[in-house]
C-alpha cells in the first residue's frame, strides 16, 4: 500500500525525483514498531535503509518509477512475490511491507515415565518404556505405577509439526488432575528451522505436585499437553504468543501404598489391589480392603482375570487332576496357560500383592493337622456314627459324603482334601485367599468355618462336579490327642478344652480305648491318651508347618 506527498527534489540534470517511505508491519502484531530492520528496494535505483524507531525505512531522491521492496531479516517472512510501489516525482510515496515470523508447533510423540516403579507384565517381562506412544492404540498404552505422594516424571518426546523461521525455544506443559492432585509438568524444547517432521530430543519433566497421598487407580485421566513459543530471534513479543494444544496422553496409573518390596511389580496384582483399596492410606486398611475381591471371585467363571491375557485365575481348577508342578507360586499363577494353582500359589499371590505396595509384614502360613495326615475342607456330611473304629470313624464318600463346599477362586468345587493348606498371616488377621475367606482372628477361628474334618492317609477317588477328586478312606470330624499328666482328672481335662464335663469327654465314642481301660464312671492316669473330639470341644486341630 502506498501514497504520495508533494516534494521539490530533482536529480542534477533536471530528472524529477521522489521519496519512498516503507513501513515494516508485523502481521502478528500490527502495533509492533519494527525498528532495526533493513529494507531493500530494487528499481531504477537499488538501495537499502534501516527502519527507524517507528519501523519506517526512508528512501529519498528516487527517480520516479516502480520499485520492489523486501526486508533482510531471515526470521521474518516477506510477502511473495516481492511487493512493489510506484515512486511519483515530487512526492513522498509510502508503502507497507507486511512480514511475519514462522513459529514452531509441536505435538507430543511419546512419554517414558521416570521415578515410577516399572510394571511387570505378569511374568512376560517388565514393560519397557516409552509407556505412551502416539498412534498406539489406547488399549496398548502401557500401565504405570507410582508410590503415593510421589511426583510424576517423564521424558517427553515432541514431534515438530511446523518449523520456525529461526531457532525458537518453546515452553511445553502437561496438565492433569489425579484425584485431589492437580499437576503440571513444565519444560522447554528448542526447535530449529528444518525440524519439521522431526522428533526433538526428549525433555525431562517433573510434576510440580505429587500424586495423592493414597492408593488409587487412574484409568481415564488425560495429561493435556500445550506448547507456547517463548523466545527466539523471530519472537518480538513472547507474551503475545498463543498457547496451543500439543496433544493428550493417557496411561493407566496405579498409585501404591509404597514402593514394591520383595515381589516383581506384577500387573495383575497392581490392578486388583489398587482398584480394591482405592483411597486407603495405611497398611491395615489396605490389607483389609485389597482382600475383599478375593471373597467375590470364587466360583466357576468368577475368577480374577489375568491382565496379561485375560485368562481366568483359578484354584485347583482340575480337582485331583490339577498339575503337581509349577503350581506353587504367584509367578506360576501368572505364567501358566491354564491359570490354575494350588493354595500355596494363592497364598504367595496375596503376599506378593502386599509386597508390590511395600507391605512386608504378611507371610504364608502353612498349616497341617496336629494328629492326622489329612484335612478335609467343608462341606462333607458325616452320616451316622460311622462304622470304623474311632477316631477315624467314617468311610470316605460312603459315610462321610462330599457335598457342594466352599467355592474356591474361579472354581465351584476345587480339591478339598489336603495334607496341608496355605494361609496368609498378617497383623490384621488370617486370610485364606484360595477360598476367599478372611480375615479371621486366628487359625482356630478360620478352621471352624473352613474345616470339615480330618482323615487318615489312605485315599479314595471319585468323580464330583465334573472332576476327579479324592478324600480320605477313613474320616473323622476332628480331634486332638492329649496325654494325661499327674494331677489331671477327666473334669480338669474337659474344662481345659471347653468340653461340658469329664463324663461327656469320657463317654464320647472316640474314647473307647479309655473306656476299656477305665470302666465307668471312668478316670485318667498319667500317661493315658485322651482323645479330645472336635464336636464337643473348643480345640485347634491344626498347627503351623514348621
Amino acid at each position, binding site marked *: 500500500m502506498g501514497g504520495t506527498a508533494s516534494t521539490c527534489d530533482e536529480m542534477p540534470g533536471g530528472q524529477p525525483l521522489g521519496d519512498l517511505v516503507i513501513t515494516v508491519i508485523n502481521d502478528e502484531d500490527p502495533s509492533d514498531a519494527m525498528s532495526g530492520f533493513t529494507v531493500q528496494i530494487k528499481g531504477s535505483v537499488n538501495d537499502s535503509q534501516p527502519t527507524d524507531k517507528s519501523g519506517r525505512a526512508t528512501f529519498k531522491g528516487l527517480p520516479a518509477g516502480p520499485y520492489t521492496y523486501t526486508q533482510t531479516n531471515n526470521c521474518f517472512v516477506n510477502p511473495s512475490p516481492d511487493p512493489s510501489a510506484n515512486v511519483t516525482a515530487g512526492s513522498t510515496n509510502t508503502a507497507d511491507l507486511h512480514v511475519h515470523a514462522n513459529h514452531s508447533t509441536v505435538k507430543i510423540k511419546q512419554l517414558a515415565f521416570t521415578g515410577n516403579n516399572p510394571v511387570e507384565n505378569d511374568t512376560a517381562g517388565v514393560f519397557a518404556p516409552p509407556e505412551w506412544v502416539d498412534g498406539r492404540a489406547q488399549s496398548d498404552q502401557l500401565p504405570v505405577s507410582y508410590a503415593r505422594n510421589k511426583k510424576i516424571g517423564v521424558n517427553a518426546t515432541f514431534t515438530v509439526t511446523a518449523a520456525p523461521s529461526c531457532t525458537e525455544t518453546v515452553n511445553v506443559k502437561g496438565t492433569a488432575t489425579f484425584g485431589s492432585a492437580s499437576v503440571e509438568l513444565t519444560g522447554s524444547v528448542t526447535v530449529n528451522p528444518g525440524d519439521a517432521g522431526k522428533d526433538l530430543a526428549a525433555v525431562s519433566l517433573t510434576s510440580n505436585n505429587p500424586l495423592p497421598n493414597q492408593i488409587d487407580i487412574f484409568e481415564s485421566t488425560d495429561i493435556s499437553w500445550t506448547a507456547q513459543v517463548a523466545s527466539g530471534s523471530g519472537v518480538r513479543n513472547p507474551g503475545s504468543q498463543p498457547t496451543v494444544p500439543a496433544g493428550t496422553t493417557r496411561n493407566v496409573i496405579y498409585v501404591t501404598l509404597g514402593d514394591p518390596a520383595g515381589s516383581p511389580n506384577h500387573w495383575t496384582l497392581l490392578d486388583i489391589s489398587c482398584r480394591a483399596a482405592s483411597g486407603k492410606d495405611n497398611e491395615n486398611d489396605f490389607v483389609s480392603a485389597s482382600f475383599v475381591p478375593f471373597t467375590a471371585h470364587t466360583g466357576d467363571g468368577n475368577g480374577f482375570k489375568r491382565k496379561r491375557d485375560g485368562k481366568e485365575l483359578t484354584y485347583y481348577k482340575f480337582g485331583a487332576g490339577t498339575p503337581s508342578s*509349577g503350581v506353587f507360586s504367584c509367578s506360576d499363577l501368572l505364567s501358566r496357560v491354564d491359570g490354575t494353582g494350588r493354595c500355596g500359589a494363592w497364598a504367595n499371590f496375596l503376599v506378593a500383592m502386599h509386597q508390590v505396595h511395600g507391605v512386608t509384614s504378611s507371610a504364608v502360613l502353612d498349616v497341617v493337622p496336629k494328629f492326622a495326615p489329612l484335612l478335609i475342607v467343608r462341606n462333607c456330611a458325616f452320616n451316622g456314627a460311622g462304622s470304623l473304629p474311632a477316631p477315624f470313624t467314617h468311610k470316605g464318600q460312603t459315610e462321610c459324603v462330599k457335598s457342594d463346599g466352599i467355592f474356591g477362586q474361579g472354581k465351584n468345587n476345587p480339591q478339598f482334601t489336603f495334607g496341608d493348606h496355605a494361609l496368609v498371616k498378617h497383623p490384621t488377621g488370617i486370610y485364606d485367599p484360595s477360598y476367599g475367606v478372611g480375615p479371621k482372628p486366628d487359625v482356630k477361628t478360620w478352621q471352624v468355618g473352613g474345616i470339615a474334618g480330618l482323615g487318615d492317609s489312605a485315599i479314595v477317588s471319585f468323580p464330583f462336579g465334573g472332576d476327579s477328586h479324592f478324600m480320605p478312606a477313613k474320616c473323622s470330624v476332628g480331634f486332638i490327642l492329649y496325654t494325661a499328666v499327674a494331677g489331671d482328672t477327666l473334669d480338669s481335662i474337659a474344662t481345659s478344652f471347653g468340653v461340658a464335663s469329664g463324663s461327656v469327654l469320657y463317654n464320647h465314642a472316640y474314647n473307647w480305648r479309655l473306656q476299656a481301660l477305665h470302666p465307668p464312671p471312668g478316670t485318667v492316669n498319667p500317661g493315658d491318651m485322651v482323645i479330645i473330639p472336635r464336636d464337643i470341644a473348643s480345640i485347634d486341630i491344626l498347627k503351623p508347618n514348621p
Partner: protein
Amino acid sequence: MRRIRWEQSVGLVLLAVAGCPRYAMTDNKFDFKFAPLAVENVASVSSVRLVAEGKFATLAVMRKSQDGLPELNLEPISGSKNPTRALFPLTSPFGTPSWDLARHATGFAAVWTKPGSAISQLGYQYSGGEELKLTGRYPAGIFQSPRFVRGAAGSGPALTAVMLQGGSYGLVLFPSALESGKAVYQNLPSIASGVVQDGLLVRSDSGYFLVVRMLQQGDRAPDRKDARGESLPAGVLVFSRLNAKLEALGPIVKPLGDTPVYEFDCDLIDGGIFLIATTQAGYAAGRANIAEAELKWVTFSILTKQQLVSPSLLGLENRVEAAVLDDSSASPRVLIGSINAH
C-alpha cells in the same frame, strides 16, 4: 561358531519307524538314528530316563498311575542282556511326580516330587532301602524338578532341584547326605533373570557346568503337555561354567539362542558336553568342548512332525545315547538312538 541346520523333513521318524536308512545329516555326529524301542504296554509310559549299567545303557520307564504309586521299570537297551525289571514305586498320592534316577552303590537311587497342596517335598529311595523324605529338614519347602548331578563321579550322589524361596524360584544343590534325612541344600548361583523352570548341574574334574531353563520372556511360544499331562511352558536355555566353589565364571550363554525349549538333558563324556532339548517342532542338540576357555556350542535344530517329550542323554564310553518319547498320538513310542562322542 554356531551352526543351525533346519530340515523340512518328515524323514526323521518316518524312516526310523520303517527301519530304513534313516535321516541323514551332513554332520553325522548328531544323527542319533532314532528308532522305536519295543516296550511292553508302551501306552502307559509317561517319561523315561537313561542310566548306565556297566558299559550298557538302561532305560528307566515311569508309567502313568491312577493310585499315586507310579512304578519305575528298567528296560535293557544297547545290547544289554539284563532283563526287564521293576524298581520301586514313586509314592506321590497328591500329584504326578517329576523324578530322576542315578546309579547308586546298591543299584539305583531315585528322587521324585511329592506335592501336597502348598508344599512339594522330595522323596528319595535307593535299591534295597526304604523311602526317605529327602527334604525332611524343610517340611514347608517347595521343591520341584529334581535332577541328579551328571558328569564326573563325586563322593556320592548329589542332586539339584528348583526351590521356591521368598516368592521366587531358584536352583539349589543337595551335595551330600541324601540318605540321612537331614540333607542340607545350598543355593546355586542365579545366572539369568526371570523365572527358573528347571536346571541341571554337570560335574567335571575341574568344576561344574550349569544349564538352566528359564521361562521365555515376552511373547511366549505355546505351552505343551508332557506325557504325564503336566504343562510345560516354553523356556530358553542358559548356560554357565561354575568353579569348584559353585560360583559362576561366565560368560553366560544361550546354547540354543532364543529357541523355545520344553525339556532338556545333557551329559558329559570325553571332554565334551552334550545337550538335547525338545522344541516346538522337533528337537535341538548341541555339543561343546569343555577344554575351551570359552565354550563354543555347535548346535542343530531338527524339525519333525512329532511332539517329542522326556528327552534323555547318557554319555557311555565313547557314545552318547539318547532317548525320547514320541507323544504325538494316543500310542506314544519310545525312540532311542546314539551317536559317536568323537
